[in-house]
């Protein structure tokens, strides 16, 4: 009995640690986003609160927490409150299977990739329910757009992952990362290059970030699905969106860029010079790069039109993935060197 309780306590501590770090990351990601966008647009960005504006995220959080939550009279009360909880819950629960380094993971399950896919497909319900429960035209349009978009891009994402699963022969994240061992050229971004690009693009679409943010579309439908939300309820949606961004970046680095593996593996001298760096540093560096690209894309591209999004998803990304799955299947079957020689 004592042992069971001890185990439970340990798990709870791990969960709290992951969530705390995640929330802090999200808080500073918003700050970082405003800074990066500022410099892209030749501004300085927030610099008033604290030294160089470093306390800005806390000011934002306090502001959002103190605001009143307005529940529209015509809305569906319970679902209205439930929707942001679904959004945040699914995006945080997915972190339970992400390994940060070899055997540093909360739940090392065999079907990790599938678990992530299933949870990310649940995430759209937060948006869908929010849009419907608000009982507002703009919110409704946002929800419908989000539903159509997420279905289209989830298929591409799933198929891109099928390629990774076949290449690694496993659905466990640790096995997938370890299968990429052997230097930059052995990471899956090269043999699975089309899948890597498709996964990246649909990852951006999946998180409803620019240029795929038709579900929010400030200039078209005000704020889309969360137009009726305020205060903490809005903050939850905001948190969920940014937590999802971090999650997708982590997934891309794990599945296609070798996770915690050092990029200097197999290179003489460099490998030994950098051997003191713990794997988690490489992992976080890769993750941060993809986060930066998220913001970079936002500062660069205009929003896609709805029909263009559908066209890109169904007519370009999906055929590319299906063709490349066949290619990967062939390569795995005939043990094409150097990647699939087993």
């Amino acid at each position, binding site marked *: 009995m004592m042992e069971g309780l001890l185990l439970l306590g340990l798990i709870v501590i791990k969960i709290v640690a992951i969530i705390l770090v995640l929330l802090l990351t999200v808080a500073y990601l918003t700050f970082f986003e405003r800074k990066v966008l500022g410099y892209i647009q030749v501004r300085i960005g927030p610099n008033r609160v604290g030294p160089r504006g470093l306390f800005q995220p806390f000011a934002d959080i306090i502001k959002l927490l103190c605001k009143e939550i307005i529940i529209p009279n015509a809305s569906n009360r319970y679902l209205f409150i439930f929707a942001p909880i679904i959004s945040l819950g699914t995006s945080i629960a997915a972190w339970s299977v992400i390994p940060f380094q070899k055997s540093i993971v909360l739940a090392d399950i065999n079907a990790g990739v*599938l678990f992530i896919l299933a949870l990310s497909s649940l995430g759209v319900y937060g948006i869908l329910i929010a849009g419907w429960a608000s009982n507002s035209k703009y919110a*409704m349009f946002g929800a419908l757009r989000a539903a159509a978009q997420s279905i289209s891009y989830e298929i591409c994402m799933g198929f891109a992952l099928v390629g990774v699963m076949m290449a690694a022969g496993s659905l466990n994240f640790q096995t997938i990362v370890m299968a990429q061992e052997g230097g930059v050229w052995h990471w899956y971004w090269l043999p699975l290059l089309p899948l890597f690009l498709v996964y990246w693009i649909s990852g951006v679409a999946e998180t409803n970030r620019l240029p795929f943010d038709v579900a929010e579309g400030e200039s078209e439908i005000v704020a889309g699905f969360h137009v009726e939300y305020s205060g903490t309820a809005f903050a939850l949606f905001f948190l969920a969106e940014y937590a999802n961004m971090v999650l997708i970046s982590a997934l891309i680095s794990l599945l296609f860029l070798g996770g915690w593996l050092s990029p200097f593996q197999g290179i003489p001298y460099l490998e030994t010079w950098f051997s003191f760096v713990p794997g988690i540093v490489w992992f976080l560096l890769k993750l941060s790069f993809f986060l930066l690209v998220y913001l970079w894309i936002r500062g660069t591209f205009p929003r896609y039109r709805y029909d263009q999004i559908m066209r890109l998803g169904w007519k370009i990304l999906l055929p590319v993935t299906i063709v490349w799955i066949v290619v990967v299947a062939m390569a795995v079957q005939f043990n094409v060197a150097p990647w699939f020689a087993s």
Partner: protein
Amino acid sequence: MTFYQLIFYAFSTVAVFSGLMVVASNNPVRGALFLVLTFFAMSGVWLLLQAEFLALILVLVYVGAVMTLFLFVVMMLRVNVVGMFEGFVRYFPLALFVIMVIAGISIMVIGPARFGLLSMPAPGIKPDDFSNIKEIGMVLYTDYAYPFEISAVMLLTAIIAAISLSHRKTKK
């Protein structure tokens, strides 16, 4: 009561309750959302049966894709809730008869005679490297290869039919 039983009863209670609410709720969108909850709870029960692949695929396909499309359509419908209970009393005997027939057939087919613990023993604790996916793939491509291929062809036919029905030729 063990921990497993506790989880089982929690999930199955949610499944049964939400299954009832699918029929009982008078708002179609709520009904669809309760159906989502039913699927979710059922996938929890399947996880307890150590069928994690099927459980996660259930969430992925039915909750993530099929029900999203359902909701997409249902949200845009305007259903007149007031007139929905007209003729409830008049059709009740017929409905009762239909329910009894369906329940009878279900009990005969999936009752304890075929799916009892004697004919389908509960899965024991599997070794760590036991892979659901390999087992399913094995069975699917050997014992059930023909049904599998036939259903694939049927789906393909359905896709082609749907496309040819909804396809609009572009005028040039």
